[in-house]
């Protein structure tokens, strides 16, 4: 295998992984606060559409990414309102959000299937990218790729190094106790849900702004659901999201390359691997839960909080 093919594979993996990384790290924070939002796919597709539309009108990548985040947040705010104020069932509301997002984006994006835009391209970091081997491997990616890694770090730092992060985790583990000592459960959860929306939006926009310069109905093609699986795979630990996203995205790219290189592997079996791993991790979490050694699954995940006082 020559050097440029190797670098191409690495870049391919980064492009396949980053949408998952964004969406999953957002959902991780949401679930840490005790909320299960199954609407990731819906928020991603709206982000993909808005990013594309704004890029096509303004040619401004910053505005496009910002709009995608706002689009994801707008859809997330519907979820926040329904689940946090009207106390609807989170699973049903999340599913409805995905259906709504897919349908809304398909409808609103009808006029944009004929268009194409200028992709946001990779910006090699000056000087550093000229280092032999390391330069192309570490310093020649798309700016949004670095942002994804930074967001993972930021979420870790917030959850485990700030007071607000501690409160958010406490709310996720026992909302009644957190409420009793005076924390505003609903406010924390709404903020988390909006953050999750913004991250899903940017993850969706990565598809339509970085990967392919087109808008197409349903173009997220199930990536929101993979992101949800990824949170479980990571057992709610931020840095494991990076590993999981690279594994999930990497297998897609590797099996494509293996087919082209005529390496005899079964595409179907390879594609199953990340999901099998997720199931194994789920089972092992369950075992640890039985043994009361669980420290990871937020105890109030998906439970409705109703303040009685």
């Amino acid at each position, binding site marked *: 295998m020559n050097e440029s093919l190797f670098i191409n594979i690495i870049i391919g993996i980064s492009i396949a992984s980053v949408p998952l990384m964004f969406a999953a790290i957002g959902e991780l924070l949401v679930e840490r606060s005790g909320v299960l939002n199954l609407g990731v796919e819906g928020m991603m597709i709206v982000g993909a559409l808005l990013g594309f539309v704004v890029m096509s009108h303004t040619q401004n990548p910053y505005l496009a990414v910002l709009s995608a985040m706002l689009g994801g947040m707008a859809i997330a705010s519907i979820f926040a309102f329904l689940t946090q104020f009207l106390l609807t069932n989170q699973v049903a509301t999340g599913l409805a959000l995905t*259906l709504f997002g897919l349908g809304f984006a*398909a409808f609103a994006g009808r006029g944009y299937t*004929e268009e*194409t835009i200028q992709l946001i391209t990779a910006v090699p970091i000056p000087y550093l990218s000229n280092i032999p081997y390391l330069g192309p491997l570490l310093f020649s990616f798309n700016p949004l790729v670095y942002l994804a890694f930074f967001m993972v770090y930021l979420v870790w730092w917030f959850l485990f190094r700030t007071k607000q992060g501690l409160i958010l985790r406490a709310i996720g583990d026992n909302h009644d106790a957190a409420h009793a000592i005076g924390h505003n459960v609903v406010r924390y959860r709404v903020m988390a849900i909006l953050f999750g929306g913004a991250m899903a939006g940017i993850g969706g926009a990565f598809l339509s702004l970085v990967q*392919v310069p*087109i808008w197409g109905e349903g173009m997220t093609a199930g990536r929101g659901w993979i992101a949800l699986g990824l949170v479980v795979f990571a057992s709610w630990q931020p840095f494991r999201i990076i590993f999981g996203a690279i594994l999930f995205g990497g297998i897609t*790219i590797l099996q494509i390359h293996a087919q082209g*290189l005529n390496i005899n592997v079964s595409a*179907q079996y390879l594609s199953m691997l990340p999901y099998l791993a997720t199931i194994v991790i789920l089972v092992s979490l369950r075992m640890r839960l039985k043994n009361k050694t669980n420290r990871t699954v937020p105890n109030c995940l998906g439970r409705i909080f109703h303040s009685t006082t």
Partner: protein
Amino acid sequence: MSNRSLSSVVKLSILSVVLAFTSNVYADPVKAAFVYIGPTGDHGWTFAHDQGAKYVKEMMGDDVIITTVESVEENSDSERVITSLARKNDIIFTTSFGYMNPTVKVAARYPDVKFEHATGYMRPTDNISTYSARFYEGRHVIGKIAGRMTETNVIGYIASFPIPEVIRGINSAYLAAKSVNPDIEIKIVWVYSWYDPGKEADAANALIAQGADILMQHTDSTAPMTVAEEKGVYAFGQASNMREWGKNAQLTGIIDDWGPYYLERVQAVKDGTWTSTDVFHGVDSGMVKFAPMNNSMPFEVRNEASKAIIDLSMGAIHPFTGPINKQDGSAWLAEGETPPNYPDLLTMDFYVEGIDAKYPN
């Protein structure tokens, strides 16, 4: 066209199906309905069928009322959609292989309604017709162009599902390319989806990185074309003219032109002359057409491609003309022999000799 399914998760999106009704009612207009597997904006398979439906409306005007339903999954939901359409329409076109069983079932219950199933072969009641196109004739032409235009001698092929129609396309393109360029090699990547722009782009990038300088696709989105344009390699439009996404990249494109067939069938319903038929048209009838050829192609290449198109339209050549062996070296067609539609073409499940890739199972 079997199993044009998106990921199972997206099945949920069937709830977002959009019903578009045109509402001008005149004296006894024919009511025609179309059921689509994907979004009309895919600029591929479904787009082409929708263009056909629009053509009927344009030609017949107030004499026809057209209803279209898009993104209908090939599960029990399609039976529900077809049934509800059967109550209000005179003729229904179901435009994906996977609608075969639902179409047959509903047709048995509504004997007065005419059904037209694309790419299928079952006509148990006399109110069903089947129709398909010889897209492998189009692959023959782009195969010849690819064989001439490649500099690396590697064609990258983005394939969807291993069904006979897709296999026919790969074999036809390879044989044609090989006939003009003995050093040609074809790299095939199966993405197991009809429509996933992200994955189609991943496949395109991988194939280019592995040395392909010319791409062919049997998936429905414009993503591979955009990648070809960005990376400065050549590609061919699929089902419709994709020049908008590949001004330099698109050499030509295989265009599915269903319009005249749809018009003929709807008109037949109006005239009371409709009968159950089975149609497998190609370049000769204009069901398979080509996008304008790119000016960057040398005169001789354009000339050769044009000649192939003319020969196909006159029936002077057949893309599968022996001697052709199967991949394992066993004989398929003898010198000068051409295959029958059934079973050879319609059930094709092998690569031809020379393709260096494992047949997917």
